[in-house]
């Protein structure tokens, strides 16, 4: 049996959602490793884009910043924000975007801005960055979260990025370019969105976790289907590639 850390598992799981030939906004951290892993395994023709301006990037080491020069050499074009977020993303040419968040609600709406009331915030989080732009306009959105009751909330403290908003018809009302969140990957499970209501639904459970644990760590009513498969585990090949991409363990950590 293959041995893996939680982080490695999540990266392999996220990677499986990238399809060959897709244009992917990779960002940094786990999503970037997931996108790079996909390109080196099942999606060799996927096109990794950094919102800072790098197109079809092939970094030999993991970049720390979306603007990191590690994205440059071997990429096919090096441009700017109007190009990536305007012409490409808003232009409807980005297939997949990855986002994380401090809070998510049952429609997949995300908070990356403030914890506590807006008027007197307890914590100022990073804000949207390109997150709201990606959530509005990428065709598919993959959300990565740590599975924590305080993060899966009934009401967001602040809605930074649109998921499915108030449900069916709400993205259409604002003529949004993208189709909203497709999957939420946590350290316990994968969730998707029930097509009729666009509410979060359990999709697969990671090895070692139970449905009850998952439900207990969500503050809204999670849709739970009758049959729930186990999430696929990473292969040794996937683990090896990840560690070649992040030899210093910047994102993967030192352990294995």
């Amino acid at each position, binding site marked *: 049996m293959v041995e893996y850390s939680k982080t490695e598992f999540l990266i392999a799981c996220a990677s499986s959602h990238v399809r060959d030939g897709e244009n992917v906004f990779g960002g940094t951290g786990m999503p970037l490793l997931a996108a790079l892993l996909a390109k080196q395994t099942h999606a060799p023709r996927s096109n990794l884009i950094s919102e800072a301006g790098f197109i079809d990037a092939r970094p030999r080491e993991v970049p720390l910043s979306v603007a990191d020069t590690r994205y440059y050499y071997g990429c096919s074009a090096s441009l700017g924000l109007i190009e990536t977020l305007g012409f490409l993303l808003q232009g409807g040419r980005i297939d997949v975007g990855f986002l994380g968040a401090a809070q998510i609600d049952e429609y997949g709406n995300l908070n990356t801005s403030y914890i506590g009331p807006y008027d007197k915030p307890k914590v*100022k989080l990073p804000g949207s960055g390109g997150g709201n732009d990606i959530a509005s306009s990428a065709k598919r959105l993959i959300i990565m979260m740590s599975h924590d009751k305080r993060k899966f909330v009934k009401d967001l403290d602040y809605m930074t990025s649109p998921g499915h908003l108030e449900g069916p018809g709400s993205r259409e009302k604002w003529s949004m370019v993208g189709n909203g969140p497709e999957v939420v990957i946590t350290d316990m499970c994968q969730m998707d969105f029930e097509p009729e209501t666009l509410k979060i639904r359990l999709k697969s459970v990671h090895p070692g976790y139970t449905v009850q644990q998952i439900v207990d760590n969500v503050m809204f009513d999670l849709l739970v289907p009758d049959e729930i498969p186990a999430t696929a585990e990473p292969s040794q090949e996937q683990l090896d590639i990840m560690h070649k991409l992040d030899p210093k363990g910047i994102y993967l950590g030192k352990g294995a």
Partner: protein
Amino acid sequence: MTEAEVEDKRITLAEAAKKVSDEDTLFWGGFGYQRPPIAFSHELVRQKKRNLTVYTCGSEVDLEIMAGAGVVYRYEIAFSAIEALGLSNNIRRRVSEGALQVEDYTNLAMAMRFLGGALNVPFMPLRSMMGTDMVRLSRYRGDDKLKVIDCPFTGEKLTVVPSLKPDFSIVHVQRVDKTGNAQIDGIVGEDIEGSRCGKKLIVLAEEIIDEEEVRTRPDQTKIPAMYVDHVVVLPFIAHPMMCHGYYDYDLEHLMMFHKLTQTEEGWQEYLNGYILGVEDHYGYLDLVGWPRLQQLKAKKPWGY
């Protein structure tokens, strides 16, 4: 034929920072780890500027420095954090104290606001932010933060954001001639639009090049001299961040910075040691140490 006398726009970093007055608004160049004008933020701190408003998508260490030292009181930005390391501690603290107000936009919204300013039109349309609290809540701009309108041709909903024409644009580039023609390598981020939107433009560059070299390869010029008011030439302007083709980021320094800023005391230690405790940018570089800086120099062909 009369030979034109070429204007030399070079001034010192201190002279450049002196041009900025309290209450001024600034476009702040660079993106993420790339080409942030850190040395300029240091000098604004040393000159004890107050109540500046800074517009940018998301510089990182420099925003932390200016927030921490009380130089800025308003940010109109999309992002504050040190990517890969964590939250922007100084900004978080200053916001909680009420000493700093952040008006939140997205990266595209800010880029469009700079584009609108550069084009001298008062607004620009985009498709982000609708349906979220970014539309519903404003820190201080109120109705002038943004509006959602119906397209006059198609009836579709669109966000319109007000364009920006700050008092100064502060942009860091790789090379410049003394008249101000500037070359940028690697990604440009939001610096093309940002350099055009300000009433005055200060270009900080790692290296001076001859005007004749610029005129031999005009298609390498990203910012023509006619936009540029002042030129400052210094090495390692972005340290501890990176400058494409010139030097890599200093991860050790960056982690030390991020760790210290976790407490006010730690931040004050950094502030007093690395910024107020030195005479000027060379004093800072001396403190960092030239052997270390030498190690950071970019290797061909990678550019970092």
